[in-house]
């Protein structure tokens, strides 16, 4: 099972203090990000907010350009695809979920 025989002795030089049995050499950390939303689904297009909205999906095959389809939060704390919401407010300036007047609290980036 031993692959190769070329461990460096760099660690020796760097650690003058009493050596631990196990020392960290490299760590590949993995994390997943998701939009910090209360509801996973965009109530306007019914697609998960982690996916691009229907419009963006149709425009780009295989999800290219997906990075641009961000999420927007209203003062009411409800969240939607920014694309979906900006079309929605042209017709009706209220949150589709709570009917409060829509005003942007923050945008996802």
């Amino acid at each position, binding site marked *: *099972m*031993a*692959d*190769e*025989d*070329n*461990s460096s002795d760099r*660690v020796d030089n760097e650690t003058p203090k009493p*050596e*631990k*049995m*196990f*020392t*960290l*050499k*490299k*760590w*590949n*950390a*993995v*994390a*997943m*990000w*998701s*939009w*910090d939303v209360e509801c996973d689904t965009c109530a306007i297009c019914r697609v*998960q907010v*982690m*996916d691009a909205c229907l419009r963006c999906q149709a425009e780009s095959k*295989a*999800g*290219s350009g*997906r*990075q641009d389809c*961000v*999420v927007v*939060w209203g003062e009411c704390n409800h969240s939607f695809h920014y694309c979906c919401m900006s079309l929605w407010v042209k017709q009706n300036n209220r949150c589709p979920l709570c009917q409060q007047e829509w005003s942007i609290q*923050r*945008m*996802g*980036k």
Partner: protein
Amino acid sequence: MLKQDKGQQHTFEDKWPSMRAIVLKLLQQEPVTQNEWQDLFYNVHSVCLWDEKGAVKVRDALTDDIMEFIKKAQVRVMSHQEDQALLKAYIAEWRKFFTQCNYLPTPFRQLETSLVGYKTPGFKTATEASIVRKLMLDSWNESIFSDIKQRLQDSAMKLVHAERAGEAFDSQLVIGVRESYVNLCSNPKDKLQIYRDNFEKAYMEATEAFYKMKAPQYLHANGVQNYMRYADSKLREEELRAHKYLESCSGSVQLLTECCVNVLVTAFKNTILAECAGMIKANETDKLQLMFKLMDRVPDGISPMLDDLVEHILQAGLDDMMASADVITQDSEKYVERLLQLFNQFSLLVKEAFSDDPRFLTARDKAYKQVVNDTQVFRLELPSKQNSGVKCQPESKCPELLANYCDMLLRKTPLSKKLTSDEIESKLRDVLLVLKYVQNKDVFMRYHKAHLTRRLILDTSADSEKEENMVEWLREVGMPADYVNKLARMFQDVKVSEDLNQQFKEQCRSTRGSIADSINIKILNAGAWARGSERVTVSLPMELEDYIPEVEDFYKKKHSGRKLQWYHHMSNGTITFANSVGRYDVDVTTFQMAVLFAWNQRSQDRISYENLRLATELPDPELRRTLWSLVAFPKIRRQVLLYGPEVQSPKDFDENTQFWVNQEFALVKNGKLQKRGKINLVGRLQLSTERSKEEDNESIVQLRILRVQEAIIKILKMRKKMSNAQLQTELVDILKNMFLPSKKMIKEQIEWLIEHKYMRRDEDDINTFIYMA
């Protein structure tokens, strides 16, 4: 001269004697001088012009002479008793006479105009329309021909019969008889009527009678396989003969061929077909080719052969798989090779025996699909009920093994290392070929995605270009688009994450110096990579824990509105293990790291399972699995950890089981201890926890249920109202690229949709559904 003759010597009575002499010479095919020939023209002309009744009189006299001539010919013909002599004599007389039918009418053209008047212009050139010619042929027909046609025909058929029996004769005799049948017809609407009603009919009957007698004899004496050759050669022979003896462009040849097929093949259809299964089994492609050729001419001849082929592929395919079940269920490479070999074997059979005829290709596909999806060889259990996981529906393990094989080709493995790029590509294409036949493509995609996730996270792809090509190939073979799109997103995402990692390292380098080199981050889009959110708690070693807020701060500055979730079960690293023997670089998962670092403060201690659990905070199943990988990693002589008392499997550890570091740990190469070295203990990176593995299977079922519901609504929305049977057909059609829904699942989903008022049953017919908006 002309002036003198005017009005005197142009009556019929004056002229006929000299005309007649020439007419008789012509009939008897005696030589006629140029002058005589021209005189005849002139005389016909003048009689018709100057004698009021001249035309009629000429015609009558001509008829008499023709009849006279025919009578003599008849006597000459009938004087022969023997068939061939009679035919020979008749044909000689007929040919002579028929030649004259083309000459004699010419001088009498004036007669035509006089008799008919000028009513029908435009007929001048057509000798067929000539009255004299018609008169000649009719006379021949009425006297000689109608008298002896039966004898002629019988004699001709006897000759054909003799030819079939292998005797040689002058084929012109039969052809001559046929010609007289064709040429004698005076029915302008159907010029072949006499030929068809007599000659053709007799020919068909004689042929049929001949083979009705011969074919069974031959079959009886020589057996089916020789008989097929016989029938085939006779069909060809009779077609050639028909071209010779039957009138072309009359459809006769085709009629005769049909007659031969009936009497030679159709009559023995079942006897011949009974041999088919055996021949397929024995791979007798030449004989099958012959049978195919014969049966293709018979109504419904091919479909029993198709059934035999399907039966054979199923039988041979499944027998073969069962025979090597113990190997192929364990070894995905062997399994895929076996499947491909079967496919090639069946394809070769279809090519050599049936010339890749589309009907046989379809039958091959149908049967091969069943072999691929068969569940007898191995079973993968999927819970089939949405709420209770009790009932299980067995599925073929084929999609999983195909995905494993792909992974071996795409990952850095001994297999992929020994193959060239082209070889790998061609093997991947092979997988795609088999994949086309896999019913549950969604299962393949699930495993494929899991393998891809491991390759991307552990950076173990053998060739990143090939990885991305594979995504497009999957799209090309019609894998469900939403699954393929997810894969494409993963590639994109991993590139975005790599950029982010570089930025992080730069920032880190400025604040923490060279230690930045020891950390890499992958921050991925949860939507593309992970299904449900699951969190495995682990208490990270201090060395790692410090990084967490640093990464999170860095990420917050880059992005907003996002939350991060650490996937420590996916993260991994390299540690240096120093003991009395040497120093080793060990690739480990973060869980393994957490367990091992527990010894850093007490390197010689024995630590109980219970205390390791407290130290790492790992959930029970994960801790057991991690410990097992450190005390019993496959294929290494000396393990990193030792334990006691000994157990058979990780589930047998109890809370008092003791673990300690193997101070004698060393890498062994060619029987020698190594003081330095590198070893990978990651194994197959666990992408999910034990609990979520079951959820994984559940989630496939959930997804299938959702797809079935969507498809039913989609179909009903379009059709508004439809029968159950029709709905099932269209449903399977829509979903077949992903999976084959079971009848039970369809039924359950229909009930659910009715209950939730998406649709209803027709009041008059419970098997008809109506869409409800």
